[in-house]
């Protein structure tokens, strides 16, 4: 599918591997593993809270249906610790994620800065040994942040989506049970029909998203690259003017600046249209997902095989599973941003590697001569 074509391409591996070589030392520290275990534990407890809230939902609406004041009051009392625990967990998750991101960014940035400053390489880098290593300051400040922020958020979201889907599949299977339909006069029993319903619905939404946003990742990557080239052209313009004693730049450099701006604006225009197209699907999904859940449960509720509480519980579980299923389509903008940042950091590292190799070669030559 074209949505995925921009992720693991053959040419990407050396760049991703080069980035990982400089970024991985963090994941060999005790602090990183401590934070990872803490975050996984938070996700698991958050899932437990989600299940408890889902059960609370069922009990609350059942009490409402029975007009049972005592049970309603009990549920209201129960909601307070549940809500408090959920809020606390969300806050703890933010702390854990951002601490891990900050620490990873710090270690990676310090490593790259050290490499950049060593033997005045930042001065020699102006020769642009590797195409795309322009504007190193931006790569160090912004791209390393993006490259180390996104993997933590995305991995946790993926892990959460997988275990949430599995857990709530069980919930949907148990509550929904089976349903008997007679499409052509022959009765057919579908076991765990809500599970099949959510899989079909989620697949449909994903397929529509892929169809409507098939060029999204490519456009985002190109736009990010264009932004970087525009910044580099502006920096080069200023730098060359400064070194020329403040004289205005010549026509060619002005043309380059205008050309890079035009490319950035055109990619921006294309991103706008990609977002407009995918908004039709995402907005439609926000409105339809809960309603589809209600409609799938309605026949059993009307037949008296499901209580109001179970109906709301199943509908809520349907939305939870459906959201979990959408991990990729919800995150592909961020994945594309992450990929372009990793590539930009990696090209800078490769340029620095090349300079380092030249320095070693010169030293060896001097030693041999001396």
């Amino acid at each position, binding site marked *: 599918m074209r949505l995925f074509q921009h992720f693991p391409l053959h040419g990407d591996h050396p760049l991703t591997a080069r980035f990982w070589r400089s970024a991985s030392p963090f994941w060999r520290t005790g602090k990183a593993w401590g934070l990872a275990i803490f975050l996984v534990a938070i996700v698991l407890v958050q899932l437990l809270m989600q299940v408890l809230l889902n059960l609370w939902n069922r009990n609350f609406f059942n009490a409402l249906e029975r007009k049972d004041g005592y049970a309603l009051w009990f549920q209201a009392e129960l909601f307070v610790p549940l809500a408090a625990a959920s809020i606390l967990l969300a806050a703890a998750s933010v702390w854990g994620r951002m601490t891990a991101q900050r620490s990873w960014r710090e270690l990676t940035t310090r490593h790259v800065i050290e490499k950049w400053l060593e033997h005045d390489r930042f001065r020699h880098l102006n020769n642009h040994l590797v195409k795309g290593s322009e504007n190193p300051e931006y790569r160090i400040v912004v791209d390393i942040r993006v490259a180390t922020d996104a993997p933590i958020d995305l991995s946790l979201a993926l892990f959460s989506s997988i275990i949430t889907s599995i857990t709530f599949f069980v919930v949907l299977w148990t509550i929904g049970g089976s349903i008997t339909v007679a499409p052509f006069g022959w009765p057919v029993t579908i076991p765990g029909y809500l599970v099949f319903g959510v899989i079909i619905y989620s697949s449909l939404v994903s397929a529509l998203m892929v169809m409507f946003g098939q060029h999204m990742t490519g456009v985002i990557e190109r736009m990010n690259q264009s932004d970087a080239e525009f910044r580099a052209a502006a920096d080069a313009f200023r730098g060359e003017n400064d070194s020329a004693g403040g004289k205005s730049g010549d026509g060619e450099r002005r043309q380059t600046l*205008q050309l890079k701006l035009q490319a950035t604006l055109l990619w921006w225009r294309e991103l706008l249209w990609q977002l407009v197209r995918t908004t039709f699907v995402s907005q439609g999904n926000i409105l339809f997902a809960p309603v589809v859940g209600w409609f799938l449960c309605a026949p059993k509720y009307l037949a008296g095989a499901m209580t109001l509480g179970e109906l709301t519980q199943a509908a809520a579980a349907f939305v939870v599973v459906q959201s979990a299923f959408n991990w990729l389509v919800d995150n592909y903008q961020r994945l594309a941003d992450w990929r372009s940042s990793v590539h930009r950091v990696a090209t800078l590292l490769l340029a620095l590697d090349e300079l380092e190799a030249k320095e070693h070669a010169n030293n060896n030559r001097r030693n041999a001569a001396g």
Partner: protein
Amino acid sequence: MQRIIVATDGSPGANRAVDAAARLTKALGGELEIFTIGGSISGAELRKLASASGDLSETLETAANKVLEQARKRALRAGVTAVKLETGWGDPAETILNTVCRQKAGILVVGRRGRGRLSGLLLGSVSQKLASLAPCAVMVVP
């Protein structure tokens, strides 16, 4: 010496404008500058670039140079000996007006209709804007 600027986007209307400007330059013994606005590319072409390995900046530059080169050949065929080429970026009317002022052009030659037919209908055509706002004589070629 009279400086004549002709704006082109490579469309048939713009080609007629280039021919007219070339004949006028030859008749007046003036200088001809051919001007184009870079950056016009369709969404389909952009999406094609997004999923391939092409460079947009290069594509834009090549497209603009192609338009200018074609116009230059037309002008040379019409007998003009020296032709200056220039690419501008941004809003067409505004960019052409800026160039006219900067180059102190005596005559501006444009086609009545270029490629932007829909935007022309919605926003008013570039030639209409130029005819009203240019600080020099404007020749609109049908």
